[in-house]
């Protein structure tokens, strides 16, 4: 009996998860119910307004400045996360030290913590009365209620993405390459930039992209640390909220749609870059 079953399975080819059709069905259902249909509703909602109305809303000066603040701060935050996330991942993979497991677990806290809690505690720390903020205030830098504060909140929510993207690749990276590079006379800097970094770069880029996207959409933590002053520290998601508060649903979805499109294009660009890099590094 058993043999027969094995035979039947073999005819179709053995797969770990049974049935491509079944798993594809589940995939489509999940994608449909949780991503595509909600996103489509944004398009439908926004399509209620004419193209002219749409452009008027999304190109109004306040909205444009909101986009500028969101994108620039998210970009900066993602860059910072790229550098420090790499270092963090490096330390967690390459060294053994007491408390490493705990530290490793802590990386994910920003995922678990409600963003409003993060925002409130960050503001408390970084305002000119807070522990860290007071020190910076003495040298004339205010952090909370400025774009620096917004960036810090985005760094906080984005860091796990970079660390978790880089970590597995770093773990698999064969140390023999480094040793070989060293033996062939490459210095530390050269080994890092010519041997290690090219291997890590696609993963780093993926982490960067995720952190960037997360920063653009971040609302909960940023509203507390941003001063929300129009044209200065007002982020795009806040403008969406302010439209909702005025019961202007279509305006809100218009801003969201523009945000979504730009983010999508950026992610597409980052992903293509990543694929290109991967091919390049294999060649």
């Amino acid at each position: 009996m058993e043999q027969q079953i094995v035979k039947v399975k073999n005819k179709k080819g053995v797969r770990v998860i049974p049935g491509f059709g079944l798993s594809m069905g589940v995939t489509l259902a999940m994608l449909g119910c949780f991503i595509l249909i909600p996103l489509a509703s944004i398009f439908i909602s926004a399509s209620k307004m004419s193209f002219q109305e749409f452009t008027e809303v999304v190109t109004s000066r306040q909205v444009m400045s909101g986009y500028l603040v969101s994108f620039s701060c998210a970009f900066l935050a993602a860059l910072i996360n790229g550098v420090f996330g790499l270092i963090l991942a490096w330390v967690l993979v390459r060294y053994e030290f007491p408390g490493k497991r705990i530290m490793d677990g802590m990386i994910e806290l920003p995922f678990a913590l409600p963003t409003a809690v993060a925002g409130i505690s960050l503001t408390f720390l970084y305002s000119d009365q807070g522990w860290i903020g007071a020190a910076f205030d003495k040298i004339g830098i205010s952090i909370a209620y400025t774009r620096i504060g917004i960036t810090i909140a985005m760094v906080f929510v984005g860091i796990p993405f970079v660390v978790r993207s880089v970590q597995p690749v770093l773990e698999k990276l064969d140390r023999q390459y480094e040793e070989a590079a060293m033996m062939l006379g490459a210095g530390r800097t050269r080994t890092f930039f010519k041997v290690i970094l090219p291997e890590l770069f696609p993963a780093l880029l993926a982490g960067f992209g995720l952190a960037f996207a997360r920063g653009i959409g971040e609302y909960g933590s940023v509203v507390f640390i941003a001063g929300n002053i129009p044209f200065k520290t007002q982020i795009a998601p806040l403008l969406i909220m302010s439209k909702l508060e005025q019961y202007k649903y279509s305006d809100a979805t218009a801003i969201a749609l523009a945000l979504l499109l730009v983010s999508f294009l950026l992610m597409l660009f980052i992903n293509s870059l990543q694929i290109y890099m991967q091919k390049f590094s294999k060649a």
Partner: protein
Amino acid sequence: MSKKAAALLFCILVVSCLAGCGSDSGKKKGDGTELLNVSYDPTREFYAEYNEIFNEYWKEKGGSDVTITQSHGGSGSQARSVIEGNEADVVTLALAHDITAIENSGMIEEGWMEELEGNSAPYTSTIVFLVRKGNEKNIKDWDDLVRDGVEVITPNPKTSGGACWNFLAAWAYEQQNGKNQQETEEFLKKLYKNVLVLDSGARGATNTFVENGQGDVLIAWENEAYLSLETHPDEFEIVTPSVSILAQPSVAVVDKNARDHGTEELAKAYLEHLYSDDAQRLAGKHHYRPSNEEILKEFSDKFDLEMNLVTIDEFGGWDEAYETYFQDGAVFDQIYAQ
């Protein structure tokens, strides 16, 4: 076989999802003893106590035990949740504007504002200043807020309905002092120049001022200012300006839901009982000004009854005021236009 199974599973998933959604938003016919009160943030403690008073009263009248559930959040987002299907029997919100939005969706019948006394506002409040103990910057009235070096904290009226009252109170001060439109606009421009942080909601602004130590003065609802005094005794003082606005948090029965739940009578009684002497005193205890003049006088040592309180009617009612001052591109946006 596997394709069929996949198709079947997909269908089951979709159908069950739809069915799930359906049963959630479907009409749950209650037995008329459950009441959902959708309210806004600072009324939590007041309604918790009021629900007990009401339950007693209702049982005395021969009704059965009622279970009252409260929901709290920002006034605007609470109103939106009701429009989008939150099964509230009654709404007790910060602004008539938010209830009008529910009315526009067809869930509340027209004329709700005339249904109960005082524009359906059983308790009122006003806008006052919260300053740090000692009042070092010597803030007494609205014109002190535009002085150089005074840092003001107030939420953004475009994201916080309650903050509209703050803006209008300052406006009323200038108007009462005989200033014309242009002078008033200049005054508000100066005032908002002094605003350090424009939080998205009243709770956020209080947090910025109280916990994070930002600014010299918080423009706040009187009841919220008292709450801050309660939680931080000896750290703050309340300053009452000479002119302010009568803030009327409104209440209404959500007719459509109450009809579906069979709670029309209960919901009506729930709101009407807010005008009873006990409930009025309770409102006073929770720092709201009772709408009953006699009971308000009992609290004369707590509330400054000498303030000149302008009503929203001076601005032509809520909808007109909102249109004039807070619509996109209107007066408030002009203040920040570069």
